[in-house]
């Protein structure tokens, strides 16, 4: 940055930032401030005239609500298992795709494709292939003799949880693949040559050369994905609506149901504030490990 040049026409600079400033203030900062403020009010959208300041009672309500804690633990399980599978599959697929083979670009395209499929579409396809009576998955499993009774994928609590995890893993593993693949391509080849000279086999080379090189990107990816996965709404709501019962509720679904079904926007907002607090903790970890985020990749 050169001084004379940079200071020359401040007006243009301010003019260019103005649309962003206005949009950010009205449609980003204000709603978030409002979301926090609403958490301290009793707010029914049908009776805005009855809005009253209630202090921390919305928070007291959710912390005393067993469903809130169920949602919290279910979200934790959902997030943990999703991240484990995404990371393992993601690294595996990245290693597979990181080979100089003719036609690898086609495989890469096909394996990254799920990332851009609308969640609504995945949820519809999931409901179709995991349909207990007519779905192809049960057909195949019954036919192969793996199971003797159809599995009720979306109507038993544990299987519904498994189905939403599968949906999530299927859709977001490509994100891990993209990040890991980008990193793999910048690992110096000399490291592998040196390891080969030292007589290291493929597994040793992976553990001693590849994995340490991937450590940084994996931490970033895992922190990012944990934050996002924990707060996902559509991936659960569109597939199971949080059901059967409330067995796949997470905090986002809980907040949505409080706001829409129970018309308690204040309680929904308080849940949102709890989510934001946890998200901030995650972000702090992220900023720590990434050195204030100098070089992240686009998703």
């Amino acid at each position: 940055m050169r001084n004379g040049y940079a200071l020359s026409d401040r007006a243009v600079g301010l003019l260019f930032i103005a649309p962003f400033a206005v949009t950010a203030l009205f449609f980003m900062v204000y709603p978030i401030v409002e979301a926090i403020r609403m958490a301290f009010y009793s707010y029914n959208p049908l009776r805005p005239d009855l809005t009253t300041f209630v202090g921390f009672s919305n928070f007291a309500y959710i912390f005393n609500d067993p469903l809130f804690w169920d949602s919290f633990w279910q979200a934790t399980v959902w997030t943990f298992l999703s991240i484990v599978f995404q990371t393992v599959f993601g690294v595996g697929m990245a290693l597979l795709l990181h080979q100089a083979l003719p036609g690898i670009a086609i495989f890469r395209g096909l394996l990254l494709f799920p990332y851009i499929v609308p969640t609504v579409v995945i949820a519809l396809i999931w409901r179709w292939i995991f349909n207990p009576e007519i779905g192809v998955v049960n057909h195949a499993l019954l036919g192969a003799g793996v199971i003797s009774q159809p599995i009720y994928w979306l109507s038993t609590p544990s299987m519904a949880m498994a189905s939403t995890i599968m949906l999530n893993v299927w859709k977001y593993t490509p994100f891990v693949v993209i990040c890991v693949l980008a990193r793999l391509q910048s690992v110096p080849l000399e490291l592998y040559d040196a390891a080969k000279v030292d007589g290291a086999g493929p597994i040793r080379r992976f553990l001693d050369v590849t994995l340490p090189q991937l450590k940084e990107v994996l931490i970033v990816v895992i922190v990012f994905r944990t934050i996002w996965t924990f707060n996902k709404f559509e991936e659960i709501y569109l597939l199971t609506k949080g059901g059967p019962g409330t067995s796949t509720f997470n905090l986002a679904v809980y907040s949505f149901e409080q706001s829409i079904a129970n018309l308690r926007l204040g309680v929904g907002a308080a849940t949102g504030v709890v989510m934001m607090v946890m998200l901030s903790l995650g972000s702090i970890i992220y900023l720590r490990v990434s050195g204030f985020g100098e070089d992240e990749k686009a998703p």
Partner: protein
Amino acid sequence: MSKSEFWTLTRRLASYAVLCAVTFVVCFPLVWALSTSLKPKSEIFATPPTLIPRTVTLENYEALLTGRPQYFQSAGQQVSSGTTPAQFFTRWFVNSMIVTLGSTLISITVSTLAAYSLTRFRYWGRNVIPYFSLLGYMVPSIIFVFPLFLVMVQLDLTDSLLSLVLGYVCITLPFCMWLMWAFMRSIPIEIEEAALIDGASRVQVFTQVVLPTALPGIIAASIFSMIVSWNDYLFGRVFLNSLDNLTLTVGVMLFFEGTHVDWGLLMAASVLMTLPMAILFMALQRHLVAGFGAGAVKG
């Protein structure tokens, strides 16, 4: 054939076998959806199910595109008698297109101008804003969708496509901003200085020097923005309510409201919904590969 050649060949074949297996598993849900969408009603429920339709028919697509009111006699309360969700499909498709393109255009324009300003001019906060923007991107939509909805109520914009355009700007702008900022920062400033010294105006410099150089960043941000807007369900669900104004994601979920679910029609809708993103993805693939760097050619 020498021993090492033999091993190379074996390893390649093994790699292809694993790649094909993984690709099959990953792509199966999409292939199955496509297959179902091309089957006549009788074959959809055939036992055993067929992956390649015995009879290929376009009747499901025809029903969607012409709005043939054949199914859904008892669709849910939102759908009055005599109308079916299928009748609105093309309308919803156009709506989705409008909000996707509209919000992307705004997000890209605003973020490009802002990123240029932040990287080329000196004022207070210019190094902090991008990081706050990134934090804004981490905040899940569920937290500010209701406050934002209340903003739309105040602006008298509810149930309008414009409200959705603004909503999508809110979710996409933070990341576009971050991406454009990172990109602009990497563009050397010397060329602009030279052009300015040669007597070019600031606007000329921006349109003729900066924008062409920033094009890859603009494309990446646009693709991101379009995917997010096209795929969103939550905002559409909260902001819109009349059948005419719905977007695809919200509308197609109404197909479930009836007592009878027409899977062929649903899968055809899923395919058509994925198609624009698939086309975009093919364009994106080149940029992805280019972005991964010249290091892609590995021996």
